[in-house]
């Protein structure tokens, strides 16, 4: 399994080409790759950068745990979850999720499950810095589910 899974936290820009190469395998017919990027505008509020804090050992353990769930649910041939920490400038990727499966529908479903679960469960937090000089730690819409 481990050769088919690449889960990591980075303090440097995420590498899309290397991520895609890892996901390529003759066992798969479809690869879905999602990237979350720093958006400049939220309504009329201008963001200038994001910064991510993380409880690293737990984040890795939690990602591994729900990667296991995904691999039981879908016929996953390769799985990748990369999250960048520290400052992430505008338009750059804070997260890349990738899944390779024999058929495309499973790749989409598994990729979406992974990003949705990451956003609710993994102890990583975003601090948003605005053009007006203010900043705030973003709290997700609901607490992690401790029973999952």
């Amino acid at each position, binding site marked *: 399994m481990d050769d088919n899974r690449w889960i990591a936290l980075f303090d440097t820009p995420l590498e899309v080409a290397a991520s895609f190469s890892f996901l390529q395998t003759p066992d798969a017919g479809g690869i879905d790759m999602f990237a979350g990027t720093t958006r400049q505008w939220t309504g009329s509020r201008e963001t200038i950068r994001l910064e991510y804090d993380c*409880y690293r050992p737990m984040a890795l353990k939690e990602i591994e745990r729900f990667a296991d769930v995904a691999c039981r649910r879908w016929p996953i041939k390769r799985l990748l979850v990369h999250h960048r920490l520290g400052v992430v400038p505008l338009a750059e990727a804070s997260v890349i999720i990738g899944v390779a499966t024999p058929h495309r529908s499973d790749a989409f479903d598994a990729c979406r499950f992974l990003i949705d679960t990451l956003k609710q469960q993994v102890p*990583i937090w975003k601090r948003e810095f605005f053009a007006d000089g203010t900043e705030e730690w973003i709290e997700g819409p609901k607490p992690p589910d*401790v029973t999952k």
Partner: protein
Amino acid sequence: MATFRILLFSVLRQRMGEGTLCVEMPSPTTGAALLDQLTTDYPAFADYRGVVRIAVNHEYVSEDRVVGVEDEVALITPVSGG
């Protein structure tokens, strides 16, 4: 009595002014008892009592989980990664 060291992140660390809080309690205790003691010792924590989740040794646990002073305990506010 034992000294529990509790790890904080993001908004909670900013609000409490430090990355680790200490509480004196008999060990073992429960997650709920730790949260109650934190609320008593640090009034600013009360705002987060309802949304915070407890992690013990890098896993989420329910508040009735028994926690010893040797465990790594962290408080997790609603996350916002991705």
